[in-house]
């Protein structure tokens, strides 16, 4: 584990942004910590890019404030902010070659030509483009352009590196490789990275923490593990991965645990973080991988329910089933790793699905 300094480098305080009559951001607040890989995740139009552009200075908040490294960014233009950005289109200057692109921002700093050359070479080495300095911009592939954009931003030694959907233009293989590489790069340089993405998998793989945004508001800020395991609401739960929702009713509740009756699954007791009103309705979430199709007939003490396979999607290593619980038409998604002794079930097959208390998550809807 690398040490994470706990103080925050970016403070976003109750920021609202209106474009004409459209409210793009509504009272957004968050703290981004020094040295962390932070992602803004959400569907298109959720305001994540607007927020990033406000941090970089290309947009100004209608109300609220943003400060970076303890300094208010009000009226500070983009060229004077301690941030650098990797643009979605990469924005490589087409009239300059790779080295000129990478060294673009250094000219202002009045360095000796030796020093400039040294820093350019260092930056190119960092992104694995040593020897590409004299290449023309138009002779680069998509992946290389992205590396140039990264080097050009990192060479400025910013306090915060902003990345606007940097992987969306790459094909799947390259994208996955770059996810790992970006993460490695961030750990090497130790700079705070703020990434905008609509790809939940990308955010989960790369981030220390993720802010999930919907319709101009922050739904949840958490580590990837917590976001996945304990989503605050249905929207977050279904945006990050797949989640089965089952309605339930509170029977008895204390500060530490709650006894509930889950529809079709029966009565069970779960640990709780707060007290629920007896009789109130809540929603239970179950991840597909937490459910198991029972192939052996020995049911033992396992909790199971009867189910009928309605559809199946075969992915090679995994099979994703949609089953109907019991005789109801409540659907549940089940994912199974295809190992020895687990034949792929065809639609219509009746089977048993096992679950456990640990696999249930209480989802607050308020």
């Amino acid at each position: 584990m690398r040490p994470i300094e706990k103080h925050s480098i970016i403070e976003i305080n109750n920021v609202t942004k209106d474009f004409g009559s459209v409210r793009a951001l509504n009272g957004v607040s968050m703290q981004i910590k020094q040295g962390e890989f932070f992602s803004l995740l959400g569907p298109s139009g959720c305001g994540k890019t607007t927020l990033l552009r406000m941090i970089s200075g290309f947009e100004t908040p209608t109300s609220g404030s943003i400060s970076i490294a303890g300094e208010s960014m009000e009226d500070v233009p983009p060229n004077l902010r301690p941030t650098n950005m990797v643009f979605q289109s990469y924005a490589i200057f087409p009239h300059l070659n790779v080295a000129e692109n990478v060294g673009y921002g250094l000219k202002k700093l009045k360095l000796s030509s030796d020093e400039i050359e040294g820093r350019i070479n260092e930056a190119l080495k960092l992104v694995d483009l040593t020897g590409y300095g004299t290449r023309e911009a138009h002779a680069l592939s998509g992946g290389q352009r992205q590396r140039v954009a990264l080097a050009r931003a990192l060479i400025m030694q910013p306090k915060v590196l902003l990345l606007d959907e940097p992987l969306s233009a790459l094909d799947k293989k390259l994208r996955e490789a770059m996810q790992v590489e970006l993460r490695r790069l961030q750990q090497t340089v130790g700079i705070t990275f703020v990434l905008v993405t609509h790809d939940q998998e990308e955010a989960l793989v790369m981030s220390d923490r993720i802010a999930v945004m919907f319709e101009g508001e922050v739904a949840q800020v958490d580590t990837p593990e917590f976001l996945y395991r304990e989503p605050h609401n249905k929207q977050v739960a279904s945006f990050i991965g797949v989640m089965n929702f089952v309605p339930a009713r509170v029977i008895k509740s204390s500060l530490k645990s709650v006894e509930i009756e889950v529809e079709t699954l029966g009565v069970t007791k779960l640990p709780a973080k707060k007290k629920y009103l007896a009789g109130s309705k809540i929603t239970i979430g179950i991840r597909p991988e937490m459910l198991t199709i029972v192939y052996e007939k020995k049911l033992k003490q396992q909790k199971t329910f009867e189910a009928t396979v309605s559809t199946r999607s075969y992915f090679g290593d995994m099979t994703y089933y949609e089953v109907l619980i019991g005789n109801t038409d409540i659907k549940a998604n089940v994912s199974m790793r295809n190992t020895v002794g687990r034949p792929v079930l065809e639609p219509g097959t009746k089977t048993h699905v096992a679950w456990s208390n640990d696999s249930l998550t209480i989802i607050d809807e308020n």
Partner: protein
Amino acid sequence: MQKASKFLLLYAVLYFLFLYAPIFLLPIFAFNDSAIISFPLSGVTLDWFFLLWETEALHDALYNSVMIAIIAATLSTALGIFAARAATRYDFPGKKGITGFLLLPIVLPEIIVGVALLVVMVQLGLSLSAWTVVIGHVLICTPFAIVILSSAFKSFDMSLEEASQDLGVGKIGTFFRVILPMVTPGLISSFLIAFTISLDEFIIAFFLTGTDVTLPVYIWGQLRFPARLPSVMALGFLMVTLSLILLAIAEYFRRRSVKYTNIESQNTTQSEETIF
């Protein structure tokens, strides 16, 4: 591809003859060894070109024309930059109407523009000179400059400007280090086309010229003397050749500017350049 019918082929050939046959007469008679413009041709000569070389008045007219064309092309390109930038980068009320009016002089009859300008100049008490011609030519060249520069500015990816600012360079620095170098081919193309238009323009020059006649006005004056006709043909041949060369160079730069500025938008959405 479907094969074109014979009729359509004939139509196309006739059409091209109609367009270009008269222009092909220029070189034919420019090199013809006879003072009379008629067939049959009598022989090949370069005399008419030597005659041009020796005519003092022609040199003055050529000098006037070139100077007027250079100044008019520079001014209209400079004005075009502002209009093109405004039309492609900013939103303001009445934008469509304003840009439409900017381009109107392209379709206005030149004789109307010429007469109107003459009236204004006289009312203002300005004496006619090469400068009044410059003003008239700026008026008709600017719309062309706007059209050419708009296509250069329009295909320019906004994020390039932002990237420059993001890297610590202010607005003025960004203009000189990113915008200008990238639209330079467009500027050259705009300048050359405006230059060509000004050089060849007759009607407005005819109305607004004082004693400093331009080349087309000089040619028109020479038509009264049948003996000068072959040398006018020679001059016409030179002007057509020069215009074609300039337009070819301008087109080369215009395409380069579009190609140049489009590199960035390749992986995002790429729209064909359209003007306004």
